[in-house]
């Protein structure tokens, strides 16, 4: 039975974590499909359950794909920052750089039939669920080729076939929706789970108890919880795999992803009024998720320094091309104002109680 569980992402670390270098590595032949075992940076802390092991099996191919995906996400968010400053993106823009490990690690542990729902910091999660760069940039710039035809904006990315349910602007509103997704999964008995994600500024909403205690993974009280280093993609992957199995057997579980965003909350927040620049650069040096993967790739001799640089250059070009293409996309046509307010073809189309635009087509 599939049940809901929440992963919460802490945006500031409670106590500084250290050492991004993996402690024990088992040497392996570096052919792409052979399994490599990697240790997570720190052991998991558990509440009301047995924590999973620190050793995660992976492969060279997976390591490389992690690196590429995270580099792409990082590049995309930084490009979005420049576009915002150039006033091509307006309104709200919440950037995810620094937190890529959560999106990438989670995706590696689950299938597209499992559902993910999150709040407004959704660009990278959308990408990890199968979205394309052009859809992202066109949507951010309000163009017709965007994900929601330019009508949603930064906070409203969805992908039905990828199992990604958004993209929500009101803090905490996505959590009951996540419950609903899981309820439907339980109802249809299809052995899938839902990850309902929220950040620590969603913790204070009416749907959940206000977070006076920072031990978020224990907030569920009788609900089991796991505290995970959210900057380590393998820890995230292991935790999500564990959580999925747990949820299918025993019910909801809370995952506290201890992650960190480099940008401020949104583009109007410099991110330096409540933390020091030293803190940000400290985390960047010691816990950066992409650096961790880079070190693993080099240590296991799967890729060379030059190859990794090439991948980054390639990714940069990909992002630039997508932006150029998105810029060429047109603004939505005025008639788009009225599309998708209701589902068409199911009877009366009307806008407003006075039915000025009534067209009755009976089914």
């Amino acid at each position, binding site marked *: 039975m599939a049940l809901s569980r929440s992963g919460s992402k802490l945006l500031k670390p409670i106590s500084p974590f250290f050492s991004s270098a993996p402690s024990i590595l088992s040497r392996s032949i570096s052919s792409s499909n052979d399994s490599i075992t990697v240790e997570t940076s720190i052991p998991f802390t558990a509440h009301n359950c047995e924590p999973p092991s620190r050793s995660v099996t992976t492969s060279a191919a997976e390591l490389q794909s992690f690196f590429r995906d995270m580099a792409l996400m990082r590049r995309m968010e930084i490009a979005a920052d420049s576009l915002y400053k150039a006033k091509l993106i307006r309104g709200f823009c919440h950037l995810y750089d620094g937190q890529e490990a959560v999106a990438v690690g989670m995706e590696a542990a689950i299938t597209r039939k499992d559902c993910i729902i999150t709040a407004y910091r959704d660009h990278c999660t959308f990408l990890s669920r199968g979205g394309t760069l052009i859809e992202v940039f066109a949507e951010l710039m309000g163009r017709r080729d965007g994900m929601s035809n330019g009508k949603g904006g930064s906070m409203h990315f969805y992908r039905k076939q990828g199992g990604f349910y958004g993209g*929500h602007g009101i803090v905490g509103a996505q959590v009951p929706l996540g419950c609903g997704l899981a309820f439907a999964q339980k109802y249809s008995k299809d052995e899938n789970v839902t990850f309902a994600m929220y950040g620590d500024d969603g913790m204070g*909403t009416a749907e959940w108890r206000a977070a006076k205690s920072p031990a978020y993974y224990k907030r569920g009280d009788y609900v089991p919880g796991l505290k995970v280093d959210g900057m380590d993609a393998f820890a995230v992957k292991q935790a999500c795999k564990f959580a999925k199995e747990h949820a299918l057997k025993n019910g909801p579980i809370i995952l506290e992803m201890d992650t960190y965003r480099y940008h401020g909350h949104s583009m109007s927040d410099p991110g330096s009024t409540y933390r020091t620049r030293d803190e940000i650069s400290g985390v960047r040096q010691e816990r950066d998720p992409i650096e961790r993967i880079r070190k693993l790739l080099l240590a296991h001799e799967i890729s060379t320094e030059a190859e990794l640089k090439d991948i980054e250059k390639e990714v940069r070009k990909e992002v630039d091309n997508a932006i150029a293409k998105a810029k060429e996309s047109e603004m939505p046509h005025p008639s788009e104002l009225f599309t998708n307010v209701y589902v068409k073809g199911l009877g009366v189309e009307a806008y407003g109680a006075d039915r000025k635009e009534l067209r009755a087509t009976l089914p």
Partner: protein
Amino acid sequence: MAALFQAPTAFSSSNSLDSNKFNHSPSPRSLSERKSSILTVRSDARSNPLLNSAAHKPHRFITNAVATKPDTSLASTSSKPGHELLLFEALREGLEEEMERDPRVCVMGEDVGHYGGSYKVTKGLATKFGDLRVLDTPIAENSFTGMGIGAAMTGLRPIIEGMNMGFLLLAFNQISNNCGMLHYTSGGQFKIPVVIRGPGGVGRQLGAEHSQRLESYFQSIPGIQMVACSTPYNAKGLMKAAIRSENPVILFEHVLLYNLKDRIPDEEYVLSLEEAEMVRPGEHVTILTYSRMRYHVMQAAKTLVNKGYDPEVIDIRSLKPFDLHTIGKSVKKTHRVLIVEECMRTGGIGASLTAAITENFNDDLDAPIVCLSSQDVPTPYAGTLEEWTVVQPAQIVTAVEQLCQ
């Protein structure tokens, strides 16, 4: 109806404590020209309807609320003296004056204290009054709105700030059931003197959830009053009136109007919560509007005047109840009504106003009432689509031309 006129107070020429901060001009003129010692509650900064029996003298209309040139016409004593400030500063001034005047007044909301308010309306207040009187709440609208209402039941006078009006949807239960109903259901034992305020309206590409106009949803709730401010002058006056009111008042501000600059009087003034404001007297058509649409209307009015029309523009300000006295007088004069609002077509303020005018003044109308509102769609993110959602000045001009045929 709550008693909103302040008891007669002598004017003093000393500025309230912090207006000096915003006083860009040299020391204000003395107020010896003031005609009476009764607090005159004005519906606009120029003519005084209480003292002038000849109502609408023709004079220049304000086409935009930037610092006005010196007024060359008659007895306005308040246009030269006074100080210039932005709308959010006017709100803060009103708030601060009331907090100094009455120790029971307190503020609660997200980021109002330490951060100073997401639109700087409460900047500096927490340092001055302490962080209990200017309380930072967690992101729990239902909870802190309820908390404010509970505090009001015991005698405090909280001002509850919604960071964006749209978030108050999460507190709808508290506002409808508790705020609006408790005075009634308790047989008059409990008063709820809260002010619920926050920015709403369509901004610049903020997306559907952050561009809502809640006045249409709240207008049915019995027991509350609703006002919408549109200039620094009426922002301060309405804020003070709302705080002094014994009834729950919802004060609607607009995200795009916070940086409007204008000159406001140095002396203390309070406006009436139930009064509409005559922005521009005229003869041909009555245009009723409020909040940001006032500026679109005034822009259209410029074009209309050039085309030879004489529109009368009224900023209704009081969304619940409507000032049918002022509106009725105007309808009886012009016999044509155009309502321009930012609410959606369905169930908006315009819809209620249309019904109210039709019921009360049907015989005075020469033409059906035209109501221009936003489209009944979630506000899109794309800039061009967002523009088409909201009423633009060109549409207002066309509507007046059609109405006046």
